[in-house]
């Protein structure tokens, strides 16, 4: 029920507001929340689901992590890609993963994707969108392969193919507003063109790889490598990285100088003199 709407306490927001006011008084600003700018997507194929994600995490306009992992473990047969605030997606998936493991021990059965979906949507709705987690949840259970997209406000869609991304949030972002945040649109364009029901595994992996690549190359908030997770009945293939789309280049020049380039005029050796020696024992009990 909605009783929890009255009960959630956000005391840290009051503290943060005070801190922000004080920081602004001296001319500083609080550190920006790290967001996974991100392109994530998922596809249902003949034997299961394929989840895909890029690997860039941004802090404002700077890349904070060039190779972060956005496909999170929920249960042995269910994985979840997360876009939005990195901390929110990480903690939300961990909480639901823990609760789902307890639930699975209680029922004595392999967890179902619909259960994970319901737990996630009920938690996100309770926080009314303040938990910035946009998720693509996929897995295979006793009823077959399933794929859900879950939005921060708590709405979900069950579809055969989904893409998701989040525009980065920064005060200087509006300078490049024409390019940012188009990751999922590029990925969805690839899906709408080439998706077919009941694809083979290799075809599905190629499709997801191309969709994420479209996001990486057309969205500033997405980049680096492409991670894939192929979930089938009884088997999970966590391919990290599946494709290193942006390998760091090798420097062609070298600024090191060979020994002897500079002529030596004179050499003086000074021995260090030991003045005092003390021993301090550490209590390691």
């Amino acid at each position: 029920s909605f009783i929890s709407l009255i009960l959630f306490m956000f005391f840290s927001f009051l503290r943060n507001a005070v801190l922000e006011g004080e920081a602004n008084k001296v001319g500083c600003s609080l550190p920006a929340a790290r967001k996974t700018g991100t392109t994530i997507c998922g596809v249902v194929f003949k034997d299961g689901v394929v989840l895909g994600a890029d690997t860039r995490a941004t802090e404002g306009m700077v890349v904070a992590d060039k190779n972060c992992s956005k496909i999170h473990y929920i249960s042995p047969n269910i994985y979840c890609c997360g876009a939005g605030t990195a901390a929110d997606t990480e903690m939300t998936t961990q909480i639901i993963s823990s609760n789902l493991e307890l639930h699975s021990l209680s029922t004595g059965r392999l967890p179902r994707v619909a259960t994970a979906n319901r737990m996630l949507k009920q938690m996100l709705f309770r926080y009314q969108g303040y938990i910035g987690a946009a998720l693509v949840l996929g897995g295979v259970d006793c009823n077959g392969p399933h794929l859900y997209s879950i939005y921060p406000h708590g709405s979900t869609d069950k579809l055969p193919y989904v893409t998701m991304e989040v525009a980065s949030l920064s005060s200087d972002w509006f300078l490049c507003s024409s390019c940012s945040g188009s990751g999922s649109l590029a990925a969805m364009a690839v899906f709408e063109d080439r998706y077919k029901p009941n694809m083979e595994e290799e075809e599905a992996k190629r499709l997801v790889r191309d969709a994420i690549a479209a996001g990486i190359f057309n969205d500033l908030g997405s980049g680096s490598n492409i991670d894939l997770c192929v979930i089938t009945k009884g088997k999970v293939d966590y391919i990290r990285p599946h494709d290193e789309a942006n390998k760091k280049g090798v420097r062609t020049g070298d600024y090191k100088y060979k020994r002897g380039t500079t002529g030596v005029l004179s050499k003086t050796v000074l021995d260090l003199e030991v003045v005092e020696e003390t021993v301090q024992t550490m209590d390691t009990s």
Partner: protein
Amino acid sequence: MAAAASMMPNFGQQISSKNDLVPDWTRQEVSTGTTIMAVEYDGGVVIGADSRTTTGAYIANRVTDKLTPIHDRIFCCRSGSAADTQAIADVVAYQLGFHSIELDEPPLVETAANLFRASCYRYREELMAGILVAGWDRRKGGQVYCVPIGGMLVRQPVSVGGSGSTYIYGFMDSNYKPGLSKDQCLELTAAALSLAMERDGSSGGVVRLASISEEGVERRVILGNQLPKFSTH
């Protein structure tokens, strides 16, 4: 509730996104833009909806199912915020299922409508949900109840809702007559939804129809190219 909301500090300035075309979950909630409709006939009800869910100007889901089963012979048509209506429908489905098991009887449509009204009215400041509750029960047959934003409850023989409904009030007033058969209701609903989808940007996709009667629920989908056409240019 209003007092609690004002305690929340402002999260920095609202950066107006010049590019409205890209989705932004942080600021724009997912909404079922929508046209929904429900009609009573002698022996049941016909309900219909479009299939578009939008975040701003991006269509997040073009094949949404807005006709949500609440019980075996009771459905609801959802419009407004996707998260709010999904959450309310889940809560009401649970409450109604529990109530039905307690009674050991199929529940009344009026009961379902009142459960919706109770949630929508109590949390009217927080929610954005316009819902049509429709179904069949043994006591009163086919019934349509309208629970718009704000939490009113009123029974109507025919009702439309959602952003696209404004475009079809005239069509409804002139073309609905009491005493239509089930097939006439289905035709009327399909026609009305097509007209609304043609004019409303937030409605589109396919037309989902369902007819509910004592015998059960019959669902069908009318794809884009099979929709009734009205304009010749």
